[in-house]
């Protein structure tokens, strides 16, 4: 899939989550996403960036603007080298949390994106990719 533009940002501290949100916003605006679509992808990015910092011990976010025949989209990849997720299905379910959050991050982000892909194994870190296409 052709990538028009790509960039990476570190996710190490809470301030990086704010920076990631602002970066995602500017790319979503540049892509021409509607306000609701911008809000959805920024919110999903906020959840996943926080997960990478808190549960993954830090990592990075990669932003990509994709071009396919007749459509463009924003793809975000969140990668960390943390402890990984033992039971992905359980982690995806609403209300399940290992921290003190609400347990909405993974399932909620999936609902806010058009495509959601997760790879994780115990001890091998986590990589989550979400894409929102311009409608």
């Amino acid at each position, binding site marked *: 899939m052709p990538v028009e533009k790509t960039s990476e940002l570190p996710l190490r501290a809470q301030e990086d989550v704010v920076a990631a949100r602002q970066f995602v916003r500017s790319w979503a605006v540049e892509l021409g996403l509607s306000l609701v679509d911008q809000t959805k992808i920024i*919110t999903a990015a906020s959840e996943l960036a926080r997960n990478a910092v808190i549960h993954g011990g830090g990592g990075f976010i990669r932003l990509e603007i994709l071009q396919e025949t007749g459509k463009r989209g924003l793809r975000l990849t969140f990668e960390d080298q943390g402890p990984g997720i033992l039971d992905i299905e359980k982690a995806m379910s609403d209300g399940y949390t290992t921290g003190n*959050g609400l347990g*909405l991050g993974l399932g909620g982000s999936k*609902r806010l994106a058009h495509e959601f892909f997760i790879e994780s194994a115990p001890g091998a870190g986590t990589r989550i990719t979400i894409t929102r296409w311009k409608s």
Partner: protein
Amino acid sequence: MERIPILKIGDFLLVTVQVDMHDRLAVTLQDDLTDRIVSSRARGVLIDISALDIVDSFIGRMLGNIAGMARILDAETVVVGMQPSVAITLVELGLSLPGIRTALNIDRGMDLLRSASEETGETASAGREDL
């Protein structure tokens, strides 16, 4: 340290969130507000989030915490000014902000707080005399 200002208007506290908050700042606001409710004997808290582009699960939880703690301290909380795109996203995220009263804008939020404090005003103020 970075802080979000809390203004006192009559019996109520007004917070206008104008920055993209990192998590620690949100927690500081929660702590500051509970302290101010007690020290100022406020009857209500108005939180204006009209400048917020997103509300994620962390901010949502913080708003719920504030409302819960305020209620225990005999103060009502009203969240005002949520952007429509934020409301749509919150529901899809799975967060319907249970236990949080909302109003479209500051004026309506103030009306809500005034009527809530008039309803309970007499008994509550009598109770406070005993403190």
